[in-house]
């Protein structure tokens, strides 16, 4: 807490309407906020949020004639700069999520149905795909939340390895290594389930993987890491 006492003091003064503090805040933190906004959205969409954030930070909203600033929520558990980025990130993510609800689902969401309805030459293919999906679901459920979060950061949020490492508080190399290890663990767990629970032979297991391997997707970890 003590490490950010200067930031807390600045936030307190800004919340109280101290003009000098506000000038200093704008001078020091506006470039930072704009940089963060540009990193989120190059089309100025996030900059609009950043600008509107200034109004709330300044405290134009009045309750019973009293100015209330967003600064009052800053408790000094992080630097003021990081807190501002967090506020901006929340506003931006929530806005994007609201916008996405109104949009049609992307093609990717339709992929399972499309795969299932395909006219398969192999009569076992549908069963194999279902078995792999089931085993994969269990394998991922058995992972630790941290490993699962790392996978989500990389595959769902499509962060780079460096960004994934930043989220996980580990180096880029460590993230890369652990992602590869998770993939391998998933692969082995799926194989084990197919062998011991579905009682498939090695040939059938190979056929299972071949059934689901025809669509490797746009992002292949092995390719990213090892090639």
């Amino acid at each position, binding site marked *: 807490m003590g*490490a950010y006492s*200067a930031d807390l*003091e600045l936030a307190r003064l800004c919340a109280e309407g101290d003009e000098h503090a506000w000038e*200093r805040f704008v*001078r*020091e*933190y506006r*470039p*930072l906020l704009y940089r*963060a906004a540009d*990193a*989120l959205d190059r089309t100025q969409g996030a900059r609009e949020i950043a600008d509107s954030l200034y109004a709330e930070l300044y405290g134009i909203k009045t309750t019973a004639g009293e100015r209330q600033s967003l600064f009052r*929520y800053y*408790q000094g*558990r*992080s*630097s003021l700069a*990081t*807190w501002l*980025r*967090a506020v*901006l*990130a*929340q506003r*931006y*993510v*929530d806005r994007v*999520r609201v916008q996405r609800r109104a949009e049609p689902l992307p093609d*990717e969401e339709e*992929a399972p149905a499309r795969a299932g309805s395909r006219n398969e030459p192999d009569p076992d293919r549908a069963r194999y795909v279902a078995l*792999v999906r089931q085993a994969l679901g269990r394998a991922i*459920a058995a992972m630790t*939340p941290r490993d*699962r*979060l790392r*996978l*989500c*950061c990389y*595959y*769902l*949020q499509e*962060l780079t390895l460096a*960004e994934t490492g*930043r*989220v996980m*508080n580990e180096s880029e190399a460590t993230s890369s290594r652990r992602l590869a290890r998770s*993939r391998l663990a998933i*692969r082995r767990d799926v*194989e084990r389930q197919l062998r011991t629970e579905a009682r498939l032979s090695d040939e059938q*297991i*190979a056929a299972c*993987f071949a059934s*689901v*391997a025809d*669509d*490797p*997707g*746009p992002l*292949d970890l*092995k390719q990213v890491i090892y090639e």
Partner: protein
Amino acid sequence: MSDVPTRLLRETLRARMTPASSSGCIDTETLAAWSDGTLRARDRAAAESHASSCPRCQALLAAMARTAPPAPARGWWHASTIGWLVPVAVAAAAVLLWINVPAKRTPPSVAAQQPASPVVTAPPVASADRRDESKDRERVPQQPAKVEEARPRAATGATRASARAEQANAASGGMRDAAVAPSSPTAPPAAAGPPPQVAATEPTPAQTSTDASTVATSRPLPPTRALTEQMRIGARAELMAKALAVPTVIVSPDANVRWRIAMGGDVERTVDGGGTWEIQSTGASTPPTAGAAPSPTICWLVGPRGLVVLSTDGRTWQRVPFPEAIDLGSIRASDAANATVTAVDGRTFTTVDGGKTWRAL
């Protein structure tokens, strides 16, 4: 055998996501603390557990990662595989130094027993004296030691060639060499430009520059070398903390005019060689940690979170905008327009227009 397809993996991960409910999501403070690495382990584990199945929180974390400022380049000594070597090497070097220089070690003196010594920033010099380090080391202080600062001898010429100034220059030159690197007595004068900061001995205001017979060194060499070693391995943040623990003195080319950053962060100025000190307000909320005074009326100060202030009249201070809120550890300046600052992460920035614009070097 082939791997699980990435697309299938993504679909399965997505299928595990629970519908976002902002009530259970990571709040702003926690998100910021996570990003700064100040979250407690237990809180972090709980947040990770939630985020592993919450699409909104994952998006928030992704946004934080995408907007994070670039991490400062880490030195080779930070590599985990050799990280343990650094303290071992420093300890070994300190032991070797201690063993190798026992005869030249300064015996305990009153000055050596004094708890705090100021950090003195010498003014820019046109040509710096190079002294035999061993000669300085062998001097034994007979009384609480004094310190004087290097002066722009070439620039000021004979007017500053008094005996007191000569002795003072000799003293500070020896200390500077001891603090930076041993140099040959025949080495050519240093080029024009500010010398590095000097860890010097204790000057009380009344003692400084009043007694021509004072001796320069009061501290044995190994700690100074150890300090240099620390700087070399990149412990700049520690140095900043140490600098705050003792007064930092910034000396202008006119040795009577100097500034000091007191322990509480106050900035003070003397125009009579330390006889009296006038408190000045820089307007900064955080105390500066280092400075440079290229003239008796011009002084630059730097400090945490991009703090740069400048005085061009010796009395009043203006805040100089700095592009990044990073901790600044040192500054060199040749006038009110040209200055170079070094951040504690090792990056260097320079300005040629009094701080209106900064360029990373």
